[in-house]
């Protein structure tokens, strides 16, 4: 699959995503510079983590108005796959492609560690490589990942099953008040999809845990599923 990784000034996970897509999953990948509304034929577009535009004003706020986002929006409107990781999730929220916002972490600290999330939906274009209910160990690294949405938006997300990942403990228990909900997110939300499922925004970094040699490959199935390579890479029957 042709994949495009968007680079904003201040992105710092773009090369990690590129590496996994290209060298681990053997896909065609190119970087997409922020100031051109051109996706160069990419079928999967990734908005990577980092500090786009230095997080000036608010994380993701200026990136959401950049030329490339016009192309991303058009791609998404046509059902194209868009993945926003960490700062990329912020960009998706600021651009209105997904509902809600991210506030400062409840702890007031930048949290950089492995956390556990539960796969709540295994029937999205992103998660078919997992079993529903599986607990993944994924790294996070963010100061603002405390998800919040209006009451109405939250209700829609929950009723239509658009929460894909929730923070949980090692056994998969979800408790919004507990420390397992690392940043204090409403309903312990770690990742959501658009109504059509083609846009996924998440705080944890699957690209940082996609190789066994690095100690953890829990994130690989996500990227493999997205590029349609889950069967080959993971030996899945579906």
């Amino acid at each position: 699959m042709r994949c495009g990784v968007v680079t904003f000034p201040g992105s710092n996970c773009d090369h990690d995503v590129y590496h996994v897509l290209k060298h681990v999953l053997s896909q065609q990948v190119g970087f997409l510079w922020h100031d051109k509304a051109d996706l160069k034929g990419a079928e999967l577009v990734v908005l990577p983590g980092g500090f786009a535009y230095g997080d000036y004003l608010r994380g993701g706020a200026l990136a959401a108005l950049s030329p490339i986002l016009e192309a991303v929006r058009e791609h998404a409107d046509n059902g194209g796959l868009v993945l926003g990781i960490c700062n990329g999730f912020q960009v998706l929220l600021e651009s209105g492609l997904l509902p809600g916002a991210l506030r400062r972490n409840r702890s007031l600290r930048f949290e950089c560690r492995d956390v556990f999330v539960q796969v709540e939906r295994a029937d999205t274009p992103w998660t078919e490589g997992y079993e529903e209910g599986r607990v993944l160990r994924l790294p996070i690294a963010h100061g603002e990942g405390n998800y919040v949405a209006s009451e109405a938006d939250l209700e829609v997300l929950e009723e239509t099953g658009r929460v894909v990942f929730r923070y949980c403990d090692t056994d998969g228990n979800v408790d919004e008040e507990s420390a397992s909900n690392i940043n204090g997110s409403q309903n312990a939300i770690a990742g959501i999809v658009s109504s059509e499922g083609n846009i996924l925004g998440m705080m944890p970094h699957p690209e940082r845990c996609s190789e066994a040699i690095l100690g953890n490959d829990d994130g690989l199935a996500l990227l493999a599923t997205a590029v349609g390579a889950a069967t080959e890479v993971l030996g899945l029957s579906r």
Partner: protein
Amino acid sequence: MAKKTAKKGSVRVRVTVFPRPEILDPQGKAIASALERVGFDKVSEVRAGKSFDLDLEGVTEADAREVAEKMADKLLANTVVEDYSVEILDAES
């Protein structure tokens, strides 16, 4: 700090952005506890916001307000978690 008066023919507006009252403001909380620690014991709450001073050229005061509100909706505030207000600081025509 910018000059107080707007250039001739322009309107200076101030957009003030605050986290919504129902949204926990961790920065404000941290500032409040720091103030308390250094002896300001009358502080019961702090809300941390930000403000933007903008000079708009060739517009009327009413236009300036409308444009500032549009800018706040589009970029200066994230209305999911923030409220804003617009104030005309100086208008000279």
